[in-house]
C-alpha cells in the first residue's frame, strides 16, 4: 500500500469507526471527570492530543532501539515526560483552567488510550502512519470529549463556553454538571448510538433479503 493513502486511512479510522471513547470505551476517567464544561473538555483534549502525538513520534522513531523486554516501562517514561511538559505548559499559559482540571492533567500518564496506541501501533509502524494514527485517535478523543462537555454544560448550566444561552428564566439541570451527570450522559449517548447501529443493521439485512 502506498504511504499517503495508508496514512489517511489510519487518520480517519480514529475519528469515528474506531473512536476511542464511543466505540472502544477507553480512557473513561478523564472522559467523565473533566467534561463538566466545554472549555475544560477542550483543554483536556489539547493536552492529550499533544502527549499522544509526541509520544507516538518518539516511540515510532525509537521502535528498533527499545528492547522488547522493557518496552512498557520505556513507553511509560516517554509518556510521563511529555505529560510533565504539558502540565507545566498549561500551568504557565492558563492557570485558571489548570487549577480546575487539577490532578487530571498529570493523570494523562495512565490514560489507556495513549499506552494502547504505543503498544498496538507506534511500536510496529513507520513514522508517518504512526503520526496519522496518533492524530486521528487524539482528534477522535477530543471530539468525544467536546461533545460530552458541550452537552453537559448546555443542559446543566444553560451556557456554552460560559455564555448564557437561554436567559435568566432557564432552570438549569444541575445534576448534569455534577459527577452522576457524566455517567448518565455517556450512557445515554452510547444508548442512542446502539439504537442507530441496530436500526442500520436491520435495514441492511432487509435489503439483502430483498436482493436475494
Amino acid at each position, binding site marked *: 500500500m502506498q504511504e499517503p493513502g495508508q496514512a489517511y486511512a489510519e487518520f480517519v479510522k480514529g475519528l469515528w469507526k474506531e473512536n476511542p471513547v464511543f466505540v472502544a470505551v477507553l480512557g473513561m476517567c478523564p472522559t467523565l*471527570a473533566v467534561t463538566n464544561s466545554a472549555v475544560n473538555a477542550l483543554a483536556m483534549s489539547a493536552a492529550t492530543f499533544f502527549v499522544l502525538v509526541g509520544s507516538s513520534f518518539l516511540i515510532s522513531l525509537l521502535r528498533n532501539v527499545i528492547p522488547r523486554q522493557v518496552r512498557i516501562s520505556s513507553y511509560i517514561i516517554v509518556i*510521563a515526560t511529555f505529560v*510533565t511538559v504539558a502540565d*507545566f505548559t498549561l500551568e504557565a499559559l492558563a492557570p485558571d483552567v489548570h487549577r480546575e482540571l487539577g490532578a487530571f492533567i498529570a493523570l494523562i500518564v495512565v490514560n489507556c488510550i495513549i499506552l494502547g496506541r504505543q503498544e498496538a501501533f507506534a511500536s510496529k509502524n513507520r513514522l508517518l502512519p504512526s503520526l496519522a494514527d496518533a492524530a486521528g485517535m487524539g482528534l477522535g478523543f477530543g471530539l468525544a470529549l467536546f461533545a460530552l462537555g458541550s452537552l453537559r454544560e448546555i443542559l446543566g448550566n444553560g451556557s456554552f463556553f460560559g455564555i448564557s444561552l437561554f436567559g435568566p428564566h432557564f432552570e438549569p439541570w444541575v445534576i448534569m454538571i*455534577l*459527577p452522576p451527570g457524566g455517567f*448518565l450522559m455517556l*450512557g445515554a449517548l452510547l*444508548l442512542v448510538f446502539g439504537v442507530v*447501529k441496530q436500526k442500520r443493521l436491520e435495514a441492511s439485512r432487509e435489503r439483502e433479503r430483498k436482493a436475494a
Partner: protein
Amino acid sequence: MSETGQLFWILMSAMVINNFTLSYFLGLCPFFGVSGRVDTAFRLGLANIFVMVITSLCASVLNIFILPHAPYLRLISFIVVIASTVQFVEMVIRKLSPALFRALGIFLPLITTNCAILALALFQTNRGYGVVEGVVFAVGAGAGLLLALVLMAGLRVEADLSDIPKTAKGTAMNLLIAGILSLAFMGFAGLFSGSA
C-alpha cells in the same frame, strides 16, 4: 478539631463523600471490567486497599527526601517507584503466604497502573498530608473503592437476570447503573457539613 477527629474526617471523606470512583471517576477500568461477580469484586477491592497503603508510604518517602530537590521528576518517580515496590511486595508475599497470594496476586499487576493509585499519590502530595494522614487517606480511598466495586457487582448480577432491551445491554446499561449509584452517593455530601 482534635487530631483523631481530623483523621476520622479524612477517612470518611475519602471513603464515601468524595468516593474515588463515583465522584472523581478514578479507577473506572476495574470498576467496569471486574465487577461481574461479587466475590471477585471483593477480592479486587481488598488488593486495592493493600496497594494504596504501599503507594501512600512510597509517596511520603519520595515527598520528604527527593521531590523538594527535583519537582519536575514527580510523575516519573511516582510511577516507577510505586510499580517496582508493588512488584517487590508481591514477590515477598508469594514466598511468605502463598494462600494470600492466590487470593489477591492476580490483581496486583492490574491495579498498579491504575489511575486511582497515581491519583492517590498526587492528591496526598497536593493536600500536604503527612505519613499518618496519608495512610489513613489510603485506607479510606481503598475502602471506598471496595464499597463501590461490591455494590456495582451486586447490581450488575441483578441486571443480568432481568429483562433489558438488547441494545441497552453492556456498557450503556453499566454506565446508567453507575450514574444512579453516584447519585445515591451524593447523599453523603451533607454528612460532615457542620464539622468541616
